[in-house]
Each structure stands twice: as C-alpha cells, then as structure tokens.
C-alpha cells in the first residue's frame, strides 16, 4: 500500500496535538537527531506467576506451566520439573490460549426450544439456570429408572482426565446402565492389539530413542503426535546423528523429510513389508540371540521357502519363532514384497539388514497408520513382532513398558448399586461389542473392548435396544467418527441428549440441554497418568485462572450436582458414594458441595504421589499437597531395562509370542461363545486367514471401499499437528499456521495430488476438484505435491466444521469451512480390536475437475 497524503496529515495533526501535551518526547520531525548513546534503553516483563497444570491438546499430556498476569493466562511452557517434556511444549501448548479465550465459548446452560433435530436445523437454544438444567436431567433419569429402563441411558465420553471414573464409570454403574461408551476406539486400540498379542501389554510403548542405533517410524509422525511430542522434537536432531532413521509412510511427513530412509509404502501393505523384513532378518541370521535364542547347532536353517524343524531351535524369551517361520515367513521374500508394497527390494533388504546389525538397540515405532485398518490387527502384530526378533523389547535403546504410577484407583461401587443397578449395568452394551462380527478382544477377553463408532449402529438399529437418554462430554462423534453422517442420523434419533461442552459443537446441535464446561488446563481440577523418557508421571490439572463464565467441571462437579438432584428425588446412592468414598485424604472430611468434591476427589486420587510413602518409593519425593500443587507433577524412577525378561510378559506363555497362544485363546473363546470356529469368526470379521495363520502375525491384503475401476485413487487421511483433538479449529492461529503441516497452505484446506497424476487429469495447482467416495463427495482445492505417492491423494484432518464457532465454520450451524475427512471416509471397524478404521487405503476415491 502506498502511503496517502491524507493519512500523513492525520498523523501529523495527531503528533502535533500530542506534542503540545507531552512536550518534545514525540519529536518525530525534529531536525537534529538525538544521539543514541545518550538514550537509556530499558525493558522488563511485568510481574506474574508461573502456575503448573497439564496440557491435554494431545495424549502426550504434557506437564506445563502457565504464566498468569493480573489473573489472565498469557503464556505456556513445559513444566520444569517434568522428566517427560523436559520443560518444553509443542505448538499446541501455545495454541490453547485461544481456546480458553475463545469468543464463542458457551457462557451459561442452554435448552433447546426447537423440537426438530437435524443438520442445519437451528436448535433455537435459550439460556437457562443450572438449577433448571439439572432438574430436567434428574427428572429424565428418574423416569427411566422407574420404567425399568435405566439401561437405555448412555454416557459418551470424549477427552478425559483420570477423574473420568466419577462420571463415566461410577455414575453409570450406580445409576444402572451398561452404557458407558468411551471415545478410545476412534483412534487407537488396533495399535494396542499388536502389542498385546505379542508381548502382552495393552498399552502404548515407551521408546528409548536417545540410546537407539536404528529407529523405524511406522505409520505415524512422532514430531506431530503419538504421545511424546516435545520430547521427540527435542531429541530428534541428535538421534539423526547417532542412529539411522527410517520412516514408513505413504506421505512425506516431518520425520520422513528429515530421515535417512523414506519408505513410501502403498497404503495398507504394511503387513507385507513387516513380514519381508522379518524374513530377511531370519535368513541373514540377524535376530537377537540373547532374546530369541538360537539353533542347537548354531547353524542358521532359515532358508527361503524351506520349513524348519521346531526342535532344532531353542528359544529364550520368546515363543513360537519356528512356527511363525513355517506358517508365514518362509515365503515372504523381499522379491515377493517389493511389487506389493511399492518399496524396492534393495531398500527392504538394506533397512532389514541395518535393523539387524543395530539389534538390540533398535526401535520399531508402530503407529496408527499401520494398524487402524480393516485388516490391521495382524499388521500391527507383525510390525511389533520385529521388536521381539531384534531383542529390542525392554532393552536399552529399544521399546519399553511403563513404570508404576503413584495414584489411587476408583473406590468400589458394588455396595452402592441397588438391584436395578446390579441387573441393568450388566446388560449388553449399545456398541454391540461381543456380537459375532465384533469380537473386540480387549486384553484377551472377547467382547471387552469398546467399539466406539459402532455405537451409532446400535442406536440406529435399536439393537440391542433403543437409547432414550444420552449424556456426552467433550465428545463430538458427529464430527470425529468416520462415516460422520451416520452419527447425525443416530443423534436425531435420541429423544433426550445432554451435551457437556465448551463450544457449540456439531453434536451439540442435537442437544436438548447444553451444560457449559470448564476448559481443561486452565479452569478445572483433574489429573492424568502418562509415560515417556522411561519415566511415568502423575500430572495435576488445576485452575490457573478464575473460570471465564458460569462453567463447571465435566467429570466431577457436574455428576455431583446430578447426584444431589437424584437424592432430592429419593435416589441417594450416587450421592452416598461420592460423599462416603471420596473424602479429603488429609482431613477425612466429606465433600459438602460440588466444588469441594472436585478438589477432594483429585486429592484422593493423587494422594499416593504426594501424601503417602508409595510416591517417594516409586519416584519423586513430594512434601504434601501444596508442594504438589507448586510442582504440578510427580515423576517415577526410570523404568528398569529387561524388566519383563525371564518369563514375565503378560502373555499366556509369559514369553514374547511369535505364535500367539494369547490370541488363540481369545479367538477360540469368542468362537465358542458363538458356537462356531475361528475360521468362521475371521471371515465374519473381513479377514482372509484360515487355520494356523490366525495365530501368527501375517500378511492380509488390504480391504478397500470402492473398486479401483470406479474409484481409482486411494485416499489418505492425516492429522494437523495443530489439532488439539478437533478442538483448536475455532482458533485463528490454527489457520494462520496451517503451513506447518508439511505440504499444506495457511488459511486453506487442500487435497494433495502427485503432479504426475494431476497432469493426467488436466489438473493444475489451485484448481478446484470434486472428490467422491462411496460415502460422500466434496469440492476442494487441489495442491500438487511431490511428497505423495502417485495413485494416492492425501488430505489433512481437522477442518470441515459446520458448527463449533464462527472461525471454525464458514457459516455457523450451516456451512462448513473446509472439508471433514470423516464425511468422505466410510464407517468401518477393525473388528478384532474394535478400533475405528482410518488408514490402510480403505477409501477409494474418484477425482474430477470441478
């Protein structure tokens, strides 16, 4: 912009006026320059205080400190006492300031005045008092109980702290419903399946990358996500000097762009690559002898295509190696894998040999990209099994378990359950877990795992029954689950829905009552447990500012207020539980109101970390509650290497299983329950394996919605590194900094197409294209990008909100800003674990110039 004379005059007049008042200090047009040396330069930050809390922008769950000036939160940093993030946060940490000060936050409870429900239908919310809101909720709950239908109550959990027990577990069970449904399977579980059915740990691994010599990152980007973000960012530059880094991902993401090796695999072919790597490691004799054992005569008998006598090999910490070889690996040569995976044979061999030579200081970091697939359960096992082959499990520079956390568990509820509660809380859950086609084999138990995204099926089909009332907190399944359109229909069908939320999210549009929630990290009490860098932590979430509005804490204050209302209506069991079991551990006082309950219950749960001897025995010595509040985090001692060696793995054989007796037992139990065999179960679950193959990590060809003829491109979904789990899209900084997602453009939502493909279709950079899948269709800007495998297209997940706020949506309540990937990706499930499917090339799309 050229400066205009009018503007100049304006300033000159203003300057003149100011000069008359303040004298020569504003002598912008003075003829003689003031000598700089004579000027006194001064500056300082105004007083403020760093207060500890915890960031919940992703599941790293970083202990943080927030700088507070005049009662305002102004800056964020990592907690200096944290052994996990070492005092740093990732971009999400800073971004959260625009959430607490989001202009579109809900200030007061609301009720719906338009009975019609549907996408784009204005609920016509009006403000109400907390009392009216809670009375309405309690009346509905009592009505269901009186009708013998307490099981038709559904509690949907979203982002949680470990105070979840109060609303998710205790309230549902004592009230009398089986339906506490968590969000967990939206983006995990298949990954945990891989670790559980090999090493017996249903949980995320820790990684000792500062001491590793070979780091394989598979289907994730740890600089962006996967539970160690700041620590990984801190370490990665040096890891690149000390170790070889290989990244398996069809898209060139951050770690791939910096690594020694990029293996841009064809989506969904992870099992082929993993088994081929295992094949090379065995035929080259590079398995770790200390962990796996060796042939009796010391001679390697693993030759391509040849079976081996099981008796010839003596295993140490593992079980079933030769079986695995004979059933699956012997024919999985790199020559076989190369055309299937799109990775050159030479690269497969080079990486496998590199891993073998670096063993046992190797990490194979399994991420959701390689697991959250229709047939991803066995890929997850195959990839994780490489850690077993290389002796990396619980080894220095390898993959680790977690140290014990000093925190209390939920007090037992059974004493407080009446006959209705006892009976109804044990009924079949609405997510249909345990049905023949949904084994959900959580921790070896059929029908034990949540199948979050199938809850919509249960609601829509009224199978096993109809849901009459639902409460959701910090969840937004109409946006966050694939096949999001199904959730819109499911939510329309629920006659009474209560949403506890900070913003009017998409799912809130279906609510009858809306309760405004306190923002985690800044306004509420809670705590979380997590592990990384060999240390587990128990990190406190505490209010660092006064809540901005008339909001309450979702997991403690709100259920306590509901308990009070239920008591008024003659059902006091929940109130009794809260007041008898969750006392202040220091004074023994019972909570008298919701605020006291929020505080006492957090103190109760974290007491081992700061008030009991357990804490000091297991890790940091903290001197009481005030000391804990000041520090904000308790760290465990470092996890011991080789902790589970010597037959202490959580599997059936107590060993690391290449032939999974643990999975065999679980699958057989599920088959018996449905009076059939394992082959039939696998077929029902869309798997192809037959016989013994069911019990070893093996290759399964990927399952795809939409045939290649009609939908020639494979759609890849990835997450913005600025996603605070779908809750940062109302922050202007989210759009301004979107370019930090490699290949993306600030203020845009684009689909990445390889230039070679684009050229064939006559598409230029910036053209609008129509993308169609079996699930939906949208128009979006094309961005030509070499960092994507030809034949695939990729789009960042995060945008596409049609509600949430005026920054997040183009027209609030009506028109989305950008496109939600979950409307293009169809609903499907990895049925053995219950995990939602997001990856593995399961969505075929057609691309046309719009």
């Amino acid at each position, binding site marked *: 912009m050229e400066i205009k004379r009018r503007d100049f005059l304006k300033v000159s007049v203003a300057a003149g006026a100011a000069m008359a008042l303040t004298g020569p200090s504003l002598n912008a047009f003075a003829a003689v320059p003031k000598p700089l040396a004579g000027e006194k*330069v001064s500056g300082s930050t105004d007083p403020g205080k760093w207060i500890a809390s915890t960031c919940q922008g992703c599941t790293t769950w970083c202990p943080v400190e927030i700088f507070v000036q005049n009662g305002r939160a102004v800056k964020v940093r990592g907690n200096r006492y944290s052994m996990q993030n070492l005092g740093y946060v990732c971009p999400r940490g800073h971004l959260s300031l625009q959430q607490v000060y989001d202009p579109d936050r809900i200030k007061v409870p609301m009720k719906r005045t338009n009975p019609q429900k549907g996408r784009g239908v204005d609920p016509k919310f009006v403000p109400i008092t907390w009392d009216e809101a809670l009375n309405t909720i309690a009346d509905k709950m009592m009505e269901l109980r009186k009708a013998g239908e307490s099981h038709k109550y559904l509690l949907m959990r979203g982002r949680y702290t470990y105070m979840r027990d109060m609303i998710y577990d205790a309230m549902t069970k004592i009230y009398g419903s089986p339906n506490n449904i968590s969000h967990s399977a939206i983006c995990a579980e298949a990954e945990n399946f891989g670790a559980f059915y090999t090493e017996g740990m249903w949980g995320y691994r820790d990684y000792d990358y500062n001491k590793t010599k070979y780091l394989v990152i598979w289907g994730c980007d740890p600089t962006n996500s996967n539970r160690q973000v700041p620590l990984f960012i801190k370490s990665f530059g040096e890891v690149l000097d000390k170790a070889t880094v290989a990244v398996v991902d069809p898209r060139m993401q951050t770690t791939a762009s910096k690594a020694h090796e990029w293996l841009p695999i064809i989506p969904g072919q992870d099992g082929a690559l993993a088994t081929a790597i295992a094949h090379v490691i065995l035929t080259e004799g590079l398995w770790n002898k200390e962990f796996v054992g060796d042939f009796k005569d010391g001679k390697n008998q693993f030759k391509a295509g040849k079976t081996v006598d099981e008796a010839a090999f003596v295993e140490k910490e593992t079980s079933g190696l030769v079986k695995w070889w004979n059933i699956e690996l012997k024919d999985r040569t790199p020559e076989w894998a190369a055309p299937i995976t799109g990775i050159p044979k030479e690269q497969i061999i080079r990486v496998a040999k590199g891993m073998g030579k670096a063993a046992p200081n190797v990490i194979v970091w399994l991420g959701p990209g390689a697991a959250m697939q229709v047939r991803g359960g066995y890929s997850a096992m195959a990839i994780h099994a490489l850690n077993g082959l290389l002796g990396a499990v619980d080894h220095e520079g390898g993959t680790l378990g977690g140290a014990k956390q000093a925190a209390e568990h939920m007090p037992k509820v059974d004493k407080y359950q009446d006959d209705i509660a006892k009976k109804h809380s044990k009924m079949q859950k609405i997510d249909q877990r345990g049905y023949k086609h949904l084994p959900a084999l959580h921790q070896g138990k059929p029908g034990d795992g949540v199948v979050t995204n199938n809850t919509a099926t249960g609601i829509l089909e009224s199978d096993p029954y109809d849901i009459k009332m639902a409460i959701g907190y910090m969840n937004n399944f109409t946006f966050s689950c694939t096949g999001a359109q199904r959730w819109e229909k499911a939510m329309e069908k629920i006659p009474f829905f209560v949403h506890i939320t900070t913003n009017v999210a998409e799912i809130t549009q279906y609510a009858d009552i809306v309760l405004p929630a306190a923002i985690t990290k800044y306004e509420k009490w809670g705590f979380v447990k997590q592990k990384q860098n060999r240390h587990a932590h128990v990190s406190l979430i505490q209010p660092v500012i006064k809540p901005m509005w008339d909001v309450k804490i979702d997991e403690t204050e709100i259920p306590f207020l509901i308990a009070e209302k239920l008591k008024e209506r003659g059902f006091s069991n929940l109130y009794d539980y809260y007041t008898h079991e969750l006392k202040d551990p220091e004074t023994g006082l019972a909570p008298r109101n919701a605020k006291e309950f929020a505080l006492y219950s957090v103190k109760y749960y974290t007491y081992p970390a700061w008030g009991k001897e357990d804490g000091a025995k297991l890790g940091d010595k903290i001197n009481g509650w005030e000391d804990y509040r000041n520090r904000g985090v308790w760290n465990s001692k470092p996890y011991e290497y080789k902790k589970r060696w010597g037959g202490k793995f959580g599997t059936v054989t107590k060993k690391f299983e290449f032939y999974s007796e643990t999975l065999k037992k679980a699958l057989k139990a599920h088959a018996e329950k449905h009076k059939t065999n394992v082959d039939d179960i696998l077929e029902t679950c869309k798997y192809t394996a037959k016989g013994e193959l069911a019990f070893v990590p093996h290759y399964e060809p990927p399952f795809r919605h939409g045939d290649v003829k009609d939908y020639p491109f494979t759609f890849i979904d990835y997450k913005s590194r600025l996603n605070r789990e779908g809750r940062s899209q109302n922050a202007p900084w989210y759009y301004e900094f979107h370019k*930090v997602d490699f290949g993306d453009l600030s203020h845009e939502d684009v689909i990445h197409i390889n230039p070679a493909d684009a050229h064939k279709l006559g598409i230029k950079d910036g053209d609008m294209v129509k993308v169609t899948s079996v699930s939906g269709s949208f128009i979006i800007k094309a961005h030509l990008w070499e960092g994507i495998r030809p034949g695939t297209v990729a789009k960042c997940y995060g945008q596409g909100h049609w509600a949430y706020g005026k920054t997040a949506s183009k027209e609030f309540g009506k028109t989305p800003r950008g496109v939600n990937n979950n409307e293009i990706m169809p609903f499907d499930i990895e049925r053995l674990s219950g995990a939602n499917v997001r990856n593995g090339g399961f969505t075929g799309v057609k691309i046309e110039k719009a």
Partner: protein
Amino acid sequence: MPKYGMVIDLQKCVGCGACALACKTENNTQDRAKGQTFNWADFIYKAEGKFPNVKFTAMPVLCNHCTDAACVKACPVTPKAMHKHENGMTIHNMERCIGCRQCQRACPYSSEDVDKSKAAYSVISFNDFSDEVHPFYRDKKEVVAGCTASGAEIAQKAGDIPPHRTLYKHSDYASVRVAGKVEKCMFCEHRVLNGEQPYCVASCPAGARIFGDLNDPNSEVSKALKAHKAVQLANNKGELLKPGEKGTQPNVYYIRGFKVTAKKA
C-alpha cells in the same frame, strides 16, 4: 559491547511452529490482515525433487537485525524510528514512527503485501491507519445470542486486548502496537536486557535456536558458527546470500540441513 545474533540449526528444527506461536503469545501480535503477516517469527517451506526423491525444507525466519540495516537507512524521521542499538539489535521506536512504510520497502526481507509479491513472509508489518489492532477481540457477534460470548465480551471479561496479552515494558516499544505504525521482531530486547533469551529461543522444543554475542568467541553462537558452515538469507523468497555476498549483513545464520546429511549406517 555485545553484538547479538542468532544461529538456527536446521537439523534440529522440525518446522513445528512452536517458536512462532510462542512469539505471538509473548509479543501479542495480531492476526494476519491486508497482505501483512504480523508474525515476527515465521517460516519458509520449500519442496524440491520428484517422488520418491523429494526434499522438503523448513526454515524459521525473523528479522535479521542486519549490521547494514536498509530499514534504518530508509527511515526518514529524526531521530530515526528504526534504529540500531549498541548491542546490534535493530529496534523500532513506536512513538517516532510516522507509518510511512519506507523501512518496509527498503528491507530485502519485507513486502508491503506478501500475497501480491508472492513472498513467504515479511519481517516488517504495517498496522493500517484505519483499523484498530486486534479486531478479532473487538467483534461483538454472538453465535448463539445470549448464550455464547463474543470477541469483545471475552476481552472485556479478561481485562485486556488480546485477552492473553503478555504485559511488558520497553523504552522503545509497547507490548501491543497501535494503528498507523509498522512493527517487527525486536529480538525480545525487553527480555534480553534482563538476562533472558528471546522467547522464540526459550520456547523452541528442538533447541534449534541459539542466541548470543557474535563478538564473544566463547558464546554458543560463535561456537556453532565455528563448527558448521553457515548460510544467510538474501530475501524473503528463501534465496540465500552467495559466498562472498554481503547483502545487508544479516545477523541470523543457518547451519546444517533440514534433511539429515550424515551417512547411513
């Protein structure tokens, strides 16, 4: 007297944006508008090559605090609004600034309109005469009338604009700038004067940014420059100064490559 400069280790950098977002929280810069970025810390991203041999580079950028600062030369007011401090920092005096934007035109790292000039960023941004800064927190629109807040309401309730404003004082600049003036990175002199690191340096989770005295051979910046070959930016399109080329003598240096260059095992 020290001469402050910065060295950015690209092998450590992961291009995550934490430094630039931290800067926004420290220096309370407003949202991007009218071809201006207002990001005192920003990034250049570059992709080269063809699949699968693709090279992608992220490069954090900021004011280069040039020794031969073109912005200072161009500043027409006396004493100069854009001026050098003895410690080498290029500092903008907000009161003296008349908003003529000559500094912006002169600076090789700045553009009057980054969109029109197809630049990746602009060191110097200009707060338009006609608008108050931070319009986002002055807007009165409620998405659900009577139930949700507005930008103006949350700012008023919090007690400042922006509501997360970090309060600091400096003899030349304010913690939030005003309409009709330019603004840019000050190397966080208000922090450095008190022995603290610039906030982007203190906040970089990768430890990729090193700040210190280029005149002191024992400083971390000097040691990094001695250990590695360094490059400097020539402009805001991502081009580098050629060997022997001095440009405006920028004091921000880049070492190592974004992609690892060390040999594979």
